[in-house]
């Protein structure tokens, strides 16, 4: 399937009379309108990214030592994505698809070229006009990045060329076959992950006393060295090849099991083989994972432990919110209130700096008080809102969250909460006189957090499969039906609030002891929103998903008040969180690791459709690259 073949292939007639065999199209047989549209969108996107200042801010961080910084990556990732999109053809259900070919590459290249002309215009614009008054990043630094610190004309000419090349690459992803495409994506994402995880890998290699590895991997400015990049690419390619070999070996018997594990109608034979394979792997996982989690922090440095402790705090919060939003389906936008109750209860009761309650009690005692108060708060907030409709409920819970923050901040109650000055000098956690958990030693905090995460995961897991858990899910799916079936929806919802509140208060209590101080500003609305993004990104209603969401988002991007691995993102964190929330809702509302039940609920139509397509006899012959409808062939 090379260019010449594609060129010489006969152009098919009109769409109506498509032949049964996939037809090829000429290189220039493009959907020009779509192409222009993609080019324009790309141009706007590229100029937007440039003008937000991301290239300048991210330029400090090298990914591959002398050649690629995060700043340039910010301008490089969009053309291939758009190129891929424009090269993909939408195929109506039941209609024949065209064969992938050189046309896709040309489409991608042209879209990339058109789009990056936007950057050319920007370069010329910055040199000739000055609109820095509203646009703060219309700056010489940006110009420097865009013209590669060379000359204006170089920049103006090179960007379209880069666009064309990367766009073509994106378009070629269709053409080169799924195996190659997958290998390429794997290699690129491995390199990216290795570059991003620099501090963790350095930290780990120090812990295991193999500094030589990280010294070899990374240059002095934190970027991967060229040699290391080459080796990582090679390893990724080899792994991908090995993986697809293994897959081919096992795939002959069960072609669909791995592709669509959540599809209900996948047939009984593959389902059985999949089921038979799981236990051994799972058993190993069950034995190994906890041991690894307990031992690993010993080999990690301060930085990674701190990062993981923060991630753990958000896992706790997300698990709590998951019960309210994910299981019971109540959109609580004021979840931060419970975090605040936990944090402040512990602060007031344990700190000698708090203005009230002089006899200070130990942390564990304060924790019980915090749990009690949080449960009470859950009851108080939950009771008035459970009868409200979903969207009313969202704004009312948001209001409750704000009211609690305002009260903590107020001069009126500063006799108890010390108002804006916060409560400082909160002591650490004395674990039965054996050890002290303090913020100075992130490792000790991490163990405390892990302990509570384990409790929270256990509780969530048990609740999910209990009677009350099923009641929650029934309420989520359809409240009226649930009520008709005899579920006490009111008490189920209140239980969800109370349980979620108690889990959130754990996190607050640990936060107080960890940071040693609390301020009302730590409990703003944005915290609620970030927790919500974590839950949704990970997969509402799924414990593993929520944990994964917290690890990925809080670990890499950082929390509202906590930096993540990519500290360069700090200025754009909320921007990215917002965009991610939208993207996730549009593309994968069920989340990273979906809960099977929830996914079915959200994508009922698609799943049915896919199942139908697969059930067709010809469907079995298609490769297993994905269930999206643009690949189906009748």
């Amino acid at each position, binding site marked *: 399937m090379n260019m010449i073949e594609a060129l010489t292939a006969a152009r098919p007639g009109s769409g109506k009379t498509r032949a049964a065999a996939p037809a090829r199209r000429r290189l220039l047989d493009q959907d020009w309108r779509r192409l222009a549209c993609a080019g324009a969108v790309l141009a706007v996107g590229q100029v937007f990214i440039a003008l937000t200042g991301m290239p300048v801010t991210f330029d400090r961080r090298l990914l591959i030592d002398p050649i690629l910084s995060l700043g340039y990556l910010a301008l490089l990732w969009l053309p291939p994505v758009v190129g891929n999109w424009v090269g993909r053809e939408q195929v109506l259900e039941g209609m024949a698809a065209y064969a992938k070919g050189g046309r896709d590459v040309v489409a991608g290249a042209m879209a990339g070229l058109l789009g990056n002309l936007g950057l050319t215009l920007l370069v010329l614009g910055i040199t000739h006009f000055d609109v820095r008054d509203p646009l703060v990043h219309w700056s010489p630094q940006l110009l420097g990045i865009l013209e590669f610190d060379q000359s204006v004309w170089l920049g103006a000419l090179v960007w379209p060329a880069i666009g064309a090349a990367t766009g073509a690459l994106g378009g070629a992803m269709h053409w080169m076959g799924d195996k190659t495409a997958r290998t390429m994506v794997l290699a690129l994402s491995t390199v990216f992950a290795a570059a991003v995880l620099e501090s963790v890998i350095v930290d780990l290699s120090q812990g295991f006393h193999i500094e030589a590895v990280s010294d070899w991997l990374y240059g002095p400015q934190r970027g991967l060295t060229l040699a290391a990049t080459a080796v990582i690419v090679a390893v990724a390619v080899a792994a991908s090849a090995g993986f697809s070999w293994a897959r081919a070996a096992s795939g002959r018997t069960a072609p669909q099991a791995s592709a669509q594990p959540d599809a209900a109608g996948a047939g009984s034979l593959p389902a059985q083989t999949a089921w038979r394979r799981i236990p051994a792997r799972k058993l190993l996982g069950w034995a190994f994972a906890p041991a690894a989690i307990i031992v690993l922090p010993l080999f990690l440095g301060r930085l990674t432990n701190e990062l993981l402790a923060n991630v753990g705090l958000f896992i706790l919060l997300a698990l709590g919110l998951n019960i309210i939003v994910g299981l019971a389906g109540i959109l609580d936008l004021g979840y931060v209130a419970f975090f605040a109750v936990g944090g402040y209860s512990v602060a007031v009761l344990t700190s000698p700096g708090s203005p009230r309650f002089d006899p200070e009690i130990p942390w564990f005692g304060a924790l019980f008080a915090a749990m009690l108060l949080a449960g009470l708060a859950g009851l108080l907030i939950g009771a008035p809102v459970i009868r409200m409709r979903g969207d009313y409920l969202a704004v009312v819970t948001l209001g*409750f969250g704000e*009211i609690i923050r305002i009260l903590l901040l107020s001069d009126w109650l500063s006799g108890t909460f010390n108002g804006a000055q916060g409560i400082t000098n909160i002591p650490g956690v004395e674990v039965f006189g054996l050890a002290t958990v303090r913020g100075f030693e992130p490792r000790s905090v991490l163990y405390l957090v892990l302990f509570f995460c384990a409790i929270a995961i256990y509780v969530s897991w048990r609740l999910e499969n209990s009677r009350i858990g099923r009641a929650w899910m029934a309420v989520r799916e359809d409240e009226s039906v649930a009520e008709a079936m005899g579920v006490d929806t009111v008490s189920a919802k209140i239980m969800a609030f109370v349980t979620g509140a108690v889990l959130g208060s754990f996190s607050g209590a640990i936060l107080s002891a960890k940071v040693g101080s609390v301020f009302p500003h730590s409990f703003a609305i944005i915290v609620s929103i970030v927790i919500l993004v974590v839950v949704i990104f990970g997969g509402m209603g799924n414990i593993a998903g929520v944990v994964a969401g917290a690890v990925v988002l809080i670990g890499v991007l950082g929390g509202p008040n906590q930096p993540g691995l990519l500290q360069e993102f700090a200025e754009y964190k909320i921007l990215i969180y917002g965009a991610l929330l939208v993207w996730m809702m549009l593309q994968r509302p069920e989340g990273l690791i979906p809960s099977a039940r929830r996914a079915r609920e959200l994508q009922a139509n698609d799943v049915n459709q896919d199942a139908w397509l697969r059930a067709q006899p010809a469907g079995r012959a298609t490769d297993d690259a994905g269930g999206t409808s643009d690949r189906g062939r009748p």
Partner: protein
Amino acid sequence: MQKTTKQRTNVDWFLTVLRVASLAVIAAGFAAFVAQLIDSDNPFARWANPDAISLTGEQFRGLVVTGLAQGSMYGLIALGYSMVYGVLGFINFAHGEVFMVGAMTGAITSNKLAESGYWESSFVVCLLLVVVLSMLVCTITAVVMERVAYRPLRGKPRLIPLITSIGVSFFLQNCVLALLGSTVKSYPDLPNWLTDKRTFLDVQGSKILVVLVAATAMVALWYLVEKTKTGKAMRAVAEDAEIASLMGIDVNRIIVKTFAVGGAMAGVAGILWGLLFRSVIHTTGFLPGIKAFSSAVVGGIGNLGGSMAGGLTIGVAESLGPLMILEPLGVSGPSQLRDAVAFAVLIIVLLVRPSGLFGEQLPSDERT
């Protein structure tokens, strides 16, 4: 079954206690305020708060006027929430940010005009130009938002577009921060007829303007929805989109129009905001957006008149509440609790009337 009924009554009992308690606090605060007015030495006032301040008539009127002006702003923004809710049935959380984009556009263009001197020489023309520009930018923002973020989600469970709109809200806010920087953008000086207190009512011209524009906008919107063909189509889509499309109504077009109208209203509100408060920053849309959202809910969302009434309720309540209810009860620094008062009003209204002041009682199966 018996147990279930009993638990329901438990919750109902608890809610009744909450209702009574909140109303009692309001009543007690108000009584103390009145007692204070009559005689600051009477036993009740002395018991409630011995150092309570008393308001002069002029101060009281100042509070009411500023509450009404602020409330009109909330109402104007809330109209946009209500329009979209009426037609699509979901709350577009990002509407407050569209409003901020309008205020921002106004600040930038009016400053450019002021630099070139036109702002002073021909203020009204400039103002109209700025308003038109701001409406245009807001309309485009709203329409693009609908096309990119909301259209693909039609027919999904109701919470999905709501969550999406929260994402859009934070995205827009931070876009403006990233593009335009974190400094405060101020409107240039206004002519005297807007800033001076008018002899009529002794109120600032800009506040009168805000109230007038808000009233006009509401009437115009009412006319659009009730009397025009587009309005009829909007109502049809709101009733049942599928049937409407069978009747030959282009549903997508109507929805885009709805967003466009909402966006244009936000643009007008943005400029009025600029005239009233004069300073804009990327977070300007957030709190007013949430309060307008609350206003729409208080008024009974989907109801245009109700939104305006809700806005006025919240505006006046947060203006008067701290000094009339909390101060007499001995709360120190009550102004700090202003936002808490606004949200408390929302909660109390919904406790007493679960579908808002003017909202229709919805059948239980629509509660999701």
